[in-house]
């Protein structure tokens, strides 16, 4: 019968909703205003039914861990010795040739994927442009390449901040560092000056003075010559 079933449904709905009342009252962080406005049917359902909530959590966990699975497989494929970004069928013959340059722009490489790059002791140029998963933790792993790395490009990586740039001081042989277009860096002008002080022999590209907040004191601080 339609009537008793709908009554039961409503009862179950109210039961779930009211038993969650305790959670709602003791909530630490209230939802932001704009999130509340855009409350979709899915969010409404997951507030009232435990199963929908569990499903959404499962999908979120899957999404978060998917990065790691994708990356390992991908890395295994292209880490074979090759010159600048050129894939060739003969790379199997080049197994003993030291890798000089790796172009990983746009790749989904992450912290664990760097395992494949770090043993390359003769690596001179590394490009990690526009890599969405390269963050401060990844930068802290680059110190084994200090002996040979001369060129590093990090432009366009959305998760790198000035805290990760601080651990590039290990790379003393670095001659060119491209840190343009890093949206997560607050105070780009100041960061550029501090990075230039940290790596005196390196040419730092990006984060032009026009972008950052430069006062007269900071301009006086610049000891190293500014190529730009």
């Amino acid at each position, binding site marked *: 019968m339609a009537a008793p079933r709908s009554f039961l449904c409503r*009862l179950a709905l*109210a*039961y*779930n909703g*009211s*038993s969650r*009342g*305790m*959670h709602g*009252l*003791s*909530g*630490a*962080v209230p*939802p932001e205003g704009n*999130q509340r406005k855009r409350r979709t049917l899915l*969010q409404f359902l*997951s507030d009232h039914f435990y199963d929908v*909530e*569990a499903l*959404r*959590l499962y999908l*979120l*966990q899957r999404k*978060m*861990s998917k990065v790691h699975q994708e990356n390992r497989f991908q890395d295994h494929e292209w880490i074979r010795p090759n010159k600048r970004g050129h894939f060739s069928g003969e790379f199997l013959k080049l197994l003993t040739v030291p890798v000089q340059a790796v172009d990983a722009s746009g790749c989904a490489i992450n*912290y664990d994927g760097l395992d494949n790059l770090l043993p390359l002791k003769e690596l001179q140029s590394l490009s990690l442009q526009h890599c969405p998963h390269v963050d*401060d*933790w990844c*930068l*802290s*792993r680059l*110190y084994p390449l200090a002996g040979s790395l001369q060129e590093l490009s990090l432009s366009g990586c959305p998760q790198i*901040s*000035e*805290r*990760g*740039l*601080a*651990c590039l*001081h*290990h790379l003393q042989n670095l001659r060119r560092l491209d840190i343009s277009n890093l949206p997560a860096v607050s*105070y780009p002008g*100041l*960061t550029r000056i*501090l*990075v230039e*002080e*940290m790596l005196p022999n390196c040419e730092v590209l990006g984060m032009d003075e026009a972008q950052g907040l430069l006062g007269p*004191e900071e301009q006086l601080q610049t000891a190293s010559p500014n190529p730009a």
Partner: protein
Amino acid sequence: MFRSALRLRSSRVLLVRGLGTRRGGSTLDWDEKVSDIKKKIGSILPGETWAPLYDTRHLPPEHSDVVIVGGGVLGLSVAFWLKKLQKKRDGIRVLVVERDHTYSKASTVLSVGGIRQQFSLPENVQLSLFSVNFLRNINEYLAVVDSPPLDLQFNPSGYLLLASEQGAANLENNVKMQRQEGAKVGLMSPQQLQNKFPWMNVKGVALASYGMEDEGWFDPWSLLQGLRRKVQSMGVLFCQGEVTRFTTSSNSMVTSSGEEVVLKRIYEVHVKMNNSLEYQPVECAIVINAAGAWSGQIAELAGIGKGPPGTLKGTKLPVEPRKRYVYVWHCPQGPGLEMPFVADTNGVYFRREGLGNNYLGGLSPTEEEEPDPINLDVDHDFFQDKVWPHLGRRVPAFQSLKVQNAWAGYYDYNTFDQNGVVGPHPLVVNMYFATGFSGHGLQHAPAVGRAVAEMVLEGHFQTIDMSPFLFSRFHLGEKVQEDNIF
């Protein structure tokens, strides 16, 4: 008929309202009455507490499987792992009791936020390694649907521990042990130090150990809020109140040698509301003491330490609050971005804070100079007399600096061996400890939370063996001394 009567009444209200307001007569607020009635009907339905006489929403529930005393990072970490490792969904009911929801005196938020693997005990190194793994993958562990990802503001700048002639051999052994456990730590000679950090004065330094990876500092407040948010989404209940009493039942048993042992179980926890005499007895199966600097008081409430001294019954929990100062100063010519978290030979520690040439640091006072932990007032003379001279010697640029800010926080100091207490009490069988870390609790919190959750759910430690940290060592006199404490 009823509807028409309503309409009549409301129209009469409209007529009367114009005159009534002058006389201050009450208006019939029909909307409010309707919502009150709806709330009352809603509270009768199953799942809601039926409280016809007065509002009980601020009180904790009457039953809970696990009561965690203390809502700091350790307490929340235990709650998180209990819920994560539970076999059935909603299989374990957890209640976190925290006295101060603003965390104004909590050691977690007043902490300097450093994490390192450079310890002298292998278990501590393993705890740190797991914790840093946890922090790196924090958005996998603490993901909550519809919430933004967490940003811990981690600075991977590493720790630099300096050693004089006397401490050099010890440092070398420690580094060897840390590398065996998997930490990425390297040794540096004074010459290498001078080349790498030209702003340092290496006089008096015989050897230094430098953490290359997985060490640095982060924002403890974001970790705490992230844990809180996740733990609430997993169904842990929070209560703002103070634990004032444990009601225990005893069971007397005789050992094989004929000695009588009284084992106690806590079956009820009295949670008193703040600023009132109201309390709620919460029936519980397990109590976890994660009260930080106040763990000693909580242990006394459970009767731990009430007995003739020298016996197991008379062994108190040797955790007491110790006040530590942190000072923030500005030095315009100070070290730059590459500066790690430096810990000097005499215990003075300092690190960079932000990009504006600000630094923070402090020193743990000696036993004789211990300040009174009655309040968190800062002693600025301590900086002038004890900290600044050492700073100026080690980093000459620090000879001219200006103190911007200072605060004080508590260490949950373990007077026995400055290392944590984890695991159940031998006599009060259902009280588990997760406290006493004396200044390195924050960096071990994820791993210790998991260890305690494993102990509660499985009965033994599974991933990291924390049996040297059990309570029984206080009675047996087996110290697990941690040397690298700042």
